[in-house]
């Protein structure tokens, strides 16, 4: 890849860190790439995440941010590179197994189950938790009833956290955009992940709501101990919750640093923030 030569400092640093196998990182992406026919959406991206971090991915439109999330959750096969989580290589696991490894996500364009209610959406979030054999479910055996009650109890925690109680039985299709975003966040949380991927969680929210979201993300990190990766364009949110930010441009990593650092980087200003 010709891009190696012009790879920015931070990337090389991350790469060298990754090269030492002695301390496997909590989560690590090793020079992944993705091409759609002629379009090189992601080129040689590497980074690591430590537990308890909130990592923001920012960058111009079409930089490949969503694609990186899609690669991590196995929507696409990377054309190169590998992804490691908790010392395990998850580059080739099946798509539905990603959540079993402890990674949950939200989608940029909201992918809710529109025909179902808020509560059912959240319950589906916990699908990966045990639910008894098919036969047991058919006969509604006590084991299934216990599991279901417990699922419900866990989901109620999320309902409480995100203030969704009055909406429990509303079909999600008719909720306003902002609330749908929150429900989707709740559904991801219900999966009880260790790593949470959020794609533009604040888009469509007003500043007040964004502040609330920031509070939730803080909670998720601090109280639930969930590590967060979020793609976001709202710099106020990034500044207030992210511990580090990766800036992408044209499929590459432009720089990595604290939110304050990257926001003052002149390259980031020209390519992304504007003056």
């Amino acid at each position, binding site marked *: 890849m010709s891009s190696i030569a012009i790879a920015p400092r931070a990337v090389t640093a991350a790469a060298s860190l990754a090269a030492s196998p002695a301390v496997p990182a909590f989560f690590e992406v090793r020079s992944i790439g993705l091409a759609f026919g002629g379009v090189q959406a992601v080129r040689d991206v590497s980074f690591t995440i430590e537990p308890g971090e909130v990592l923001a991915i920012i960058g111009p439109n079409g930089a490949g941010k969503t694609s990186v999330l899609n690669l991590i959750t196995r929507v696409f096969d990377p054309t190169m590179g590998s992804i490691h989580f908790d010392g395990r290589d998850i580059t080739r696991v099946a798509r539905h*197994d990603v959540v079993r490894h402890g990674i949950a996500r939200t989608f940029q364009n909201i992918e809710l189950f529109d025909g179902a209610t808020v509560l059912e959406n959240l319950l589906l979030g916990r699908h990966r938790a045990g639910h008894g054999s098919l036969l047991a479910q058919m006969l509604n055996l006590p084991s299934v009833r216990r599991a279901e009650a417990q699922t419900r109890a866990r989901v109620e925690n999320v309902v409480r956290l995100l203030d969704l109680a009055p909406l429990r039985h509303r079909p999600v299709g008719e909720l306003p955009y902002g609330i749908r975003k929150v429900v989707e966040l709740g559904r991801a949380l219900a999966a009880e992940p260790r790593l949470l991927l959020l794609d533009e969680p604040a888009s469509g929210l007003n500043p007040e709501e964004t502040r609330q979201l920031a509070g939730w993300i803080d909670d998720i990190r601090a109280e639930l101990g969930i590590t967060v990766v979020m793609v976001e364009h709202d710099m106020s949110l990034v500044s207030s919750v992210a511990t580090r930010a990766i800036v992408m441009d044209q499929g590459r990593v432009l720089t990595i640093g604290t939110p304050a650092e990257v926001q003052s980087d002149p390259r980031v200003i020209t390519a992304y923030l504007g003056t």
Partner: protein
Amino acid sequence: MAYETDYDQARRLLRTPAQRGAYGALALVLAALPFVLPAFYVGELSFVFIMCVASLGLMTLTGFTGQVSLGQAAFVAIGAYVHTLLLASGWPLPLSLAGAAVASALAGLAIGVPAIRVSGLHLAMVTLAFSIITEHALGRWKGVTGGHNGLAVPEPTLFGFGLGGTVPFYFLCLAVLTAVLLVLLNLMRSATGRAFVGLRDSEAAAQALGIRVARAKILAFGLSAAICGIAGALLSHYTQYITPETFGLALSLQLVLMVFIGGLGSLRGAILGAILIALLPSFISLLKPMLPARLGSQLGLELFIYGGVLTFFVLLEPTGLNGRWMRLRKWLAQYPLVTASASHRNKVYMQSERNR
């Protein structure tokens, strides 16, 4: 753990005393009916029950996972033939019913595995093709199926009791229907049922949540086929003689009509739809003597009315009979208080299903 019982209660099928009362009364009525109704109507009811079972089978597939099958008659056929053959070779009724379910389920899995690669109308066509092929094969495999000459169906017996009579057969059908309904109700309020609905609405999200989309789809196929197979077994007793053309395109279409007119995604809808569609021909034949003789003897009238009723229901009841039922119940619940509802019909726009 106090909350457990709470949440368990919330999952109950019958939550209020009123509901328990209503369904209890329904059970009593159903139990009493065969003793008060003339034999003809008891026979009709048995047929309706059989169709309800088949309709529930298709609803599992189409209503919940959103996969359209235009070939459900094939599974009904496989159930009917396997059941008849097993009975003829001396299997007892319960085992042979199970055998029919298993055979149909296997067929469902067999077609489900390739079929999940396609969706929407493609899937509808694959299943249609499958059922045409099945019907053809049944007609050709003379050594086993008797070909187009058909097979006589042995009378159903249980522990030496003949169940072929009108009333015993009524109870057999009712029992099977109740069992199938309960199993599906249980399934639909558990994880698997939710997964079905999930993959219908967004496969991407379903996968991200750990639902094995392919497996769930195949499972739905198998389950739906098994239930239809059971319906086929009962149907074989109803007709007493089975030939391949019993299970043609017309039956598949009827089943599809049942689930659609009943209301997709609801078990109650499957039942309501089955009742309507199964009784429609009888209803039309009752209606005919009331028409002027000139019109009543016109050929094609049946077809015309049948089509008209379908059109009517699709146009006026987009949410199906189940939707109408829900609105009715709501209206009844608020009855003295309802004012002229200010509800307003909104414009709707077509949503492409091509990129599901």
